[in-house]
């Protein structure tokens, strides 16, 4: 009995080894994706995943890269940094992916970055805007890239917009203390807004997943700001917007790209009308490249692509472009090609990777009207 079980196990192991050998020589390039397919920021992961799938369809229709087909392997991190680290390790060591895509949230990208660096597998984050994602102390991480702008720029855009276009003097800040993205963006905003002559009247915090924000909002109301700049992710923002309206706070809210999700409007039910947020792209932009992407996305997945979908698509295409230019498909060769990316035409803007591995590109400001995001203006760096 025991012998036969051992025998079966050995056979299985040999079979598995044989299978593994076959896939490794097969003519496919495997890319890995780590995303929050479930959890509080579930729409981030699913949108990015859709964008990546669309990009893979494109490249395979054109005959793949270096004559090889491209396939993707995706793991869900449930919106938890520790799970993102586990998923990244698994993709690199077990699935042996060529390139790692993800994550949307900065806290999770930060958890993955050291793993990508240590294993010399290039990681491209579609939308993590915290500056520290591509930095290890003062030096740039050699294998970590992003195809979006960073928070210093995003905060400047909103600070300038609030100060110069909306002519606001007094702004209150409400930040999520548990998120690297939220804290960083709030810090950059308050610095820039005060530089421009405005006043931060109150700086309050919450923790992602909190049910009740009324204590902070009541205090903010007492300081009578003209805008509340809140840098959380969409589920928290929607809930706190409702509670702000329930407390009779009528001023607009402001925020960053973490707001971008259809769920924001589903939970807010109009509470965010009149508010502004900065984003990577607008699906209302008449540019034919954007419109053809929007149309194809709608046909394939239904619904309008948000910026996570657009940047997931761009991140995958930037990776394919670098792989095509690289002399071989080793990590260092692809990383060198990625660092040399110049004027790549993405749907969410033209991408040039700078010395810090960030993309230098414009941001848009959107206004929420009748529970829908409307394009207001584009601001260039």
């Amino acid at each position, binding site marked *: 009995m025991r012998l036969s079980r051992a025998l079966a196990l050995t056979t299985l192991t040999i079979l598995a080894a044989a299978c593994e050998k076959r896939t490794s020589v097969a003519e496919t390039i495997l890319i890995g994706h780590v995303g929050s397919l479930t959890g509080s920021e579930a729409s981030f992961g699913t949108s990015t995943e859709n964008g990546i799938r669309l990009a893979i369809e494109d490249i395979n229709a054109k005959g793949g890269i270096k004559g090889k087909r491209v396939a993707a392997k995706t793991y869900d991190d449930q919106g938890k940094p520790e799970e993102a680290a586990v998923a990244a390790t698994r993709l690199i060591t077990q699935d042996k992916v060529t390139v790692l895509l993800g994550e949307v949230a900065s806290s999770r990208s930060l958890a993955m970055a050291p793993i990508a660096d240590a294993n010399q597998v290039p990681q491209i984050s579609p939308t993590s805007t915290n500056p520290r994602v591509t930095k290890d102390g003062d030096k740039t991480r050699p294998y970590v890239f992003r195809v979006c702008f960073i928070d210093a720029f995003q905060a400047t855009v909103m600070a300038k917009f609030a100060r110069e276009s909306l002519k606001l003097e007094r702004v209150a800040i409400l930040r999520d203390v548990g998120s690297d993205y939220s804290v960083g963006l709030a810090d950059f905003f308050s610095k820039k807004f005060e530089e421009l002559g405005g006043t931060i009247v109150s700086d309050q915090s*919450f923790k992602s*997943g909190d049910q*009740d924000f009324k204590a902070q909002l009541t205090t903010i*109301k007492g300081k009578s700001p003209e805008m509340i700049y809140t840098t959380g992710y969409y589920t928290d923002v929607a*809930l706190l917007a409702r509670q702000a309206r329930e407390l009779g706070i009528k001023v607009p809210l402001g925020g960053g790209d973490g707001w971008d999700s259809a769920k924001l409007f589903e*939970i807010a039910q109009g509470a965010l009308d009149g508010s502004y947020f900065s984003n990577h792209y607008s699906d209302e932009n008449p540019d034919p490249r954007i419109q053809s992407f929007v149309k194809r996305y709608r046909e394939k997945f239904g619904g309008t692509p948000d910026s996570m979908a657009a940047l997931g698509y761009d991140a995958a295409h930037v990776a394919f472009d670098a792989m095509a230019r690289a002399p071989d498909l080793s990590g260092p060769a692809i990383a060198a090609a990625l660092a040399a990316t110049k004027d790549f035409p993405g749907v969410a803007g033209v991408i040039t990777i700078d010395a810090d591995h960030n993309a230098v590109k414009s941001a848009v400001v959107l206004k929420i009207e009748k529970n829908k995001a409307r394009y207001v203006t584009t601001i260039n760096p």
Partner: protein
Amino acid sequence: MTEFLQHLVNGLSVGTIYALVALGYTMVYGVLKLINFAHGDVYMVGAFAGYYLSDLVGVRPPWADPPPGAGETFVKATIVTMGSMIICGLLGYLIERFAYRPLRHQARLTALITAIGVSFLLEFGFQLSPLVRSPIEFPPGPSPRVFPALLARDGYEVLGVNLSNYDIIGLLVALGLMLGLQWIVYRTRFGTAMRAVSFDSQVAGLMGIPVNRIISWTFVLGSALAAAAGIINAVSRPRIEPLFGLMAGLKAFVAAVLGGIGSVPGAMVGGLVLGLAEEYVAGYTDSSYRDAIAFTVLILVLLVRPAGLFGRLTVEKV
């Protein structure tokens, strides 16, 4: 002053939820000397049961076309709340019957660890991706869901303070349930039996009290209260997910200890005090220290009154 009063309203609204959940902790502790860590998750299940029931009875939001009449709203809200209380009552019964009863005569630590196990089972079980798709998607998975609007929200402004029918109904329902519970515990045969079991379950059994049945009913009552809390909370803060019972459960447990665990009015007062403490701390000091400072206040209270506000220290006779 307006701000102070607004904080008062907000704090009471949050405290109500803690109080209702704390009642369940207190009852179970009173009877079994067991801290039922799964109770916070029963509260979560209550909200999800309400979510599914609203789907099944077809609750229409106030902005639907045509909007539901007052009668329809009331009937459906009642069905959803009562239904959810019954489902959670049943869940409480099952937890007691299959997780705790087989361990009743083991060391108390065994039951405590089992309680933590049941808590994890509910939290992570509910995070699995749906196995059943129709008529409901169950388990719900980890993504947050939007709780339907059971009744229209009416906001009022009194002296510059904003409050709503949600806050008022929540507080009234909580007070009503607490008074009902107090009546059951002190004025009915069941309550007398419960207190007897709490005092000494072995002797109570010898006197002909059906100890098992009394304990089962205690769990049913406590769990039904948690379900009511889950619904009241979800109506005014309509984002529900499988992990949201964790923190609420912990805080309710602290509220029960603060009020004096084992005491029904103590749980109620403890919950309200904790809600207010958190609110004023977040409102008047640094909001990032909300929980830290609120819990420090509690430690100080317990240093002065180790048995809690309403608790009585019992001396163990040797």
